[in-house]
């Protein structure tokens, strides 16, 4: 598997210098019957690139993200492979070997993460400003209170939330705004890589579009790389430079967005693509056709078979 992705990598590899190199990473949940959540995954994230990581539930994409940021909890453990972070200052860090203070500094200031369901991760009894402040006091002890206040305000404005929302409580903000606050928090230390795990899943499609535009704009402005994890393939097409498709712990296809869409190589990619009916184009695998129904036939049978396997 990795050989195939390796072979594909040079052809579709990023032209940008890498900021994160994942090499043969394997993560296993050491339960009674071990679960191999991530199997021999090799990926490269270019500086300032948006890499989409697509896959369904159970494919290991979230586990991969947690592994890269060293947030795995037992029984999950990294059983093989390495992750290297190439800082823009010129040095490289072996992520798996870091410990203690160094790891703490690495997390959030070099790589930050927006978690799944992040909108509900805000502390309901603290004001937004205090929560943003927390991050700064922890990682930038040298800053004065006034400096932190100013930075908090700037951060919020950067994600498109009005500065006077600093004194609001989370429940006073809409879902979309809360998500922007989480993104602001993730950006507060000017990281070089941001990992986003299903950041727009629970949001309205209109708000989702706004958040995506925000992320794209910020990426252009600040130059960080994004690993965007979601099951929504059409969404990835809108925002990613390259897309990796994961299934059962492996990367089955890695290509730039356009190629993946127009010339998918792997069967699973094709299955995934066909599951998303086109908004404006042809009907694809759908049976119903408005006025008359088309016999189910092969398309339905194929999807039933897929489900039995699932």
């Amino acid at each position, binding site marked *: 598997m990795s050989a195939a992705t390796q072979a594909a990598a040079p052809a579709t590899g990023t032209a940008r210098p890498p900021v994160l190199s994942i090499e043969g990473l394997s993560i296993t949940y050491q339960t009674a019957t071990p679960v191999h959540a991530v199997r021999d995954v090799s990926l490269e994230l270019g500086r300032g690139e948006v890499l989409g990581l697509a896959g369904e539930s159970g494919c290991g994409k979230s586990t991969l993200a947690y592994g890269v940021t060293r947030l795995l909890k037992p029984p999950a453990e990294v059983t093989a492979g390495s992750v290297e972070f190439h800082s823009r200052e010129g040095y490289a860090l072996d992520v798996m070997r870091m410990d203690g203070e160094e790891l703490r500094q690495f997390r959030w200031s070099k790589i930050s993460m927006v978690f799944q369901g992040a909108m509900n991760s805000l502390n309901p009894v603290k004001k937004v400003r205090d929560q943003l402040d927390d991050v700064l006091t922890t990682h930038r002890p040298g800053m004065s209170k006034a400096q932190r206040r100013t930075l908090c305000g700037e951060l919020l404005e950067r994600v498109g939330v009005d500065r006077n929302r600093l004194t609001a409580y989370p429940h006073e903000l809409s879902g979309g705004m809360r998500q922007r606050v989480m993104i602001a928090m993730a950006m507060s230390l000017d990281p070089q890589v941001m990992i986003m795990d299903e950041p727009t899943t629970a949001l309205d499609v209109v708000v989702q579009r706004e958040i995506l535009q925000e992320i794209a704009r910020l990426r252009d402005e600040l130059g960080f790389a994004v690993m965007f994890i979601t099951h929504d393939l059409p969404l990835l097409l809108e925002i990613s430079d390259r897309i990796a498709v994961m299934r059962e712990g492996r990367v089955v296809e890695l290509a730039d967005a356009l190629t993946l869409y127009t010339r998918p190589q792997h069967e699973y990619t094709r299955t995934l693509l066909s*599951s*998303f009916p086109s908004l404006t184009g042809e009907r694809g695998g759908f049976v119903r056709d408005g006025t008359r129904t088309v016999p189910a036939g092969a398309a339905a049978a194929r*999807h039933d078979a897929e489900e039995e396997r699932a």
Partner: protein
Amino acid sequence: MTTLEMRDVTKVYKLRSGFRSADLRAVDGVSFRLEPGRTTALVGQSGSGKSTVAKMLMHLERPTSGRILVDDAPVGRGRRAEVAYRSRVQMVFQDPFGSLNPYHSVGHHLERPVRLHHPRLGDAEVRERVLALLRRVRLDPAEDYAQRRPHELSGGQRQRVAIARALAPEPGILVADEPVSMLDVSIRLGVLNLLASLQEEDDLGVLYITHDLATARHFSDEILVMHRGTIVERGPADDVILRPQHDYTKTLRAASPDPERRLAELA
């Protein structure tokens, strides 16, 4: 063959905070008609009122004003009328993990509605119907699935059980409230196609509630776009999506991920 009509239905919730109370018009003057053999999509984002419409159709909430008519007649009062209504209008819930009781077997879930709506059937006949329902939703071998518990099934299989349960009373109208949004992407198509073929077999009128414009377009004949409690646009599916009239519909369409458009941009 059943037709279901909502006529100028409004639902107002009273929100209390302290001593003040405010009115929340969850649904405001909504009217539409469901006909046998046709699928109508109710498209809206969260907070649009579409779930409230579903609850009112299923008699889980009462409209503040307006009427719900079955075969152009209002629903009577009393237990008998209630049971009759429920035998003709059924629902598939959104959450495959929450709509089945973890305590009971799949067979039990299907037996109850069969017995409730066909009280004169004997045990053996009830059993036969349960197995037949399971086979219709392509859960074979039916005997094996009937004695399983919900936690032994995958999300897609649970949703099929939920569909089977909805079909047990042999209804004429099916309300599908986001039936696939909590399922894995690659099995959504299979479940929607199953619904489509079942609709054709039974000549059902289906109300497909969703936030996803794409599946709404491909799965339904007519689309109703709902925003803040009112229907802002309605029409044949392709017309509403490809040639939207209302501003909100245009915003929705522009916001939805559209690979075709994106590919055109990139190329």
